[in-house]
């Protein structure tokens, strides 16, 4: 470890307070790294200014890969590599291939989405997730602010968090 990353961790008891705090804090020019909550808070994504996920695009591309692969596999195997007569149909007859192609599409888009999601959320198998405050899995909303990414001083951010209803403000380094 060359150098440590320092965070200010604000703890919030109520989701409405949190929601307004997120808006006010961002208005003051403080960059929020991430907010953790024990349950989905409606409108939090918008308040944090998150862009819409591009996961559906990945899903589409993986799905198309599945369609192509599924069709190609069956046409090549049953039509060219080892032609077999099944039910008196042509070797490469499309209708019976459709269900398998469909399943291939679903399989690859599902696996592809899960994989993509794990990678972009930094949840690789060898990676231990950062725990800003264990209570975010129970009854507290936890707001993490990366001090390295903010130009505003630590004391000032601490004051802003307190002003906006944070019940505690802690420091955390990784």
């Amino acid at each position, binding site marked *: 470890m060359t150098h440590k990353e320092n965070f200010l961790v604000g703890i919030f008891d109520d989701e409405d307070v949190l929601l307004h705090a997120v808006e006010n804090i961002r208005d003051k020019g403080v960059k929020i790294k991430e907010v953790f909550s024990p349950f989905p808070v409606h409108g939090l994504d918008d308040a944090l200014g998150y862009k819409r996920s591009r996961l559906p695009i990945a899903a589409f591309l993986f799905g198309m890969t599945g369609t192509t692969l599924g069709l190609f596999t069956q046409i090549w195997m049953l039509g060219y590599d080892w032609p077999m007569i099944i039910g*008196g149909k042509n070797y490469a007859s499309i209708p019976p291939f459709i269900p398998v192609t469909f399943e291939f599409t679903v399989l690859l888009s599902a696996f592809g989405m899960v994989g993509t999601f794990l990678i972009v959320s930094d949840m690789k198998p060898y990676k231990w997730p950062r725990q800003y405050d264990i209570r975010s899995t129970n009854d507290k909303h936890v707001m993490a602010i990366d001090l390295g990414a903010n130009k505003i001083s630590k004391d000032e951010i601490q004051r802003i968090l307190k002003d906006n209803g944070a019940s505690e403000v802690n420091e955390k380094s990784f």
Partner: protein
Amino acid sequence: MHDTHTISDEKYEFKSATRSKLFMLFGAGLLLFVIGVFMAMSAGEGGEHGEHASTEISKSLVASVDLQESHEGAAEAHHGTAPWLKRIFTTLWMNNVFFTGLGIIGLFFIAIQFAAQAGWSAGVKRIPLAMGHWIPIAGVLTLVLWFVVKGDVFHWTHAGLYDKGSADYDKVLDGKSGFFFWPMAAGSFPIFFILRMVIFFGLWYLFFTWIKKEMLAEDMDGSLEHWHTSRKLSAIFLIIFGVTSSVAAWDWVMSIDTHWFSTMTGWYLFASWWVTGLAMITFIVASLKEAGYLKVVNSNHLHDLGKFIFAFSIFWTYIWFSQFMLIFYANIPEETVYFIQRRTVAPYSWIFFANLFLNFVLPFLLFMTRDAKRQISMLKVVCPIVIIGHWFDHFNMITPGVMKGEGGIGLLEIGMGLMFLAAFLLVTLSSLAKFPLVPKHDPMMEESLGHHI
């Protein structure tokens, strides 16, 4: 949310300009229809050779696999109606089935919303309610039209088919005769069939009036009791609809190809009706929104309606493919004839493929993204595609069984479709103007206003 009261006072005004536009649409349809009839009549005289050629092709294709064709020669005698008249009968029946579906889907949509306790749809429920007003008209039309078209559209109505001594005797149909003629003798008046028709429309209309009464009474006194009653009625209606829509599909669509049967038909007609109904609801909602009505509806509600169309376009394709796949794989002659007719004979073959393109490929690709479903401009492109696509779907369900190789899609069919469309919209929009556009005391309104996806 605080301005709920002002929003709820909205009322749709059926302007005379809209009315005259619809009358013009009806007139245009009538004009096209009349031109189409004359064209078909003259083609019947002049183009005798061409038609015979196509009939011969279809006969040779079908004769090898279908029993029915073996007595086609004898059946010709009582199928002696001129092709142009047969085309009119067919298109009348086809449009009637199509628009009956749109009407009943209006009620079905509402029933689903109540039964599922859906909140998002509170603001749009009055549009399907207005569409439901077509049900009584469809009931009368179906009953009257059936007696007009039965000789040509419904092969099984001919008495000779059930007479062992007759040259037309058909063992297969005789075996099925109880389904039509019970408790009377086969070949007489199809009392069971007519009874079903009357009972189905009777039940549909009854539940429509009951649910409508509760929905409108809620506007007056705001009692929660109406919502609970509607929910109970909806649940009962859904069970009834499950059975009746399926049997209606056998009666009104499958019995045209009398020898053919498919266990998927009930689902198939329902899937087609349902997605068309959704497209019609969405199109009307989008148009009203564009005209400045429906302040309670925002892009989140449009998104949900769009998702419905997207999902059920795929559902329809699934049903289409399931039916095709089973018949293709089993390869039983009396089943495959259905697809041979539709895939190889001239007027139906391009519709067969256009059907998949319009009803699956286009809605699937155009409605895939989130933004597409949230924009009125896109909804107003895709909804008509789906509606027209399923009109073609109905054409291919009904026409080939009646017209064989002589069927076609021309001004006659398009004109009839436009006339029905104009009449349907006239009924829907004039009914919509008779009650508040947005429910005043819907317990789900608050949820609908805060709907966010």
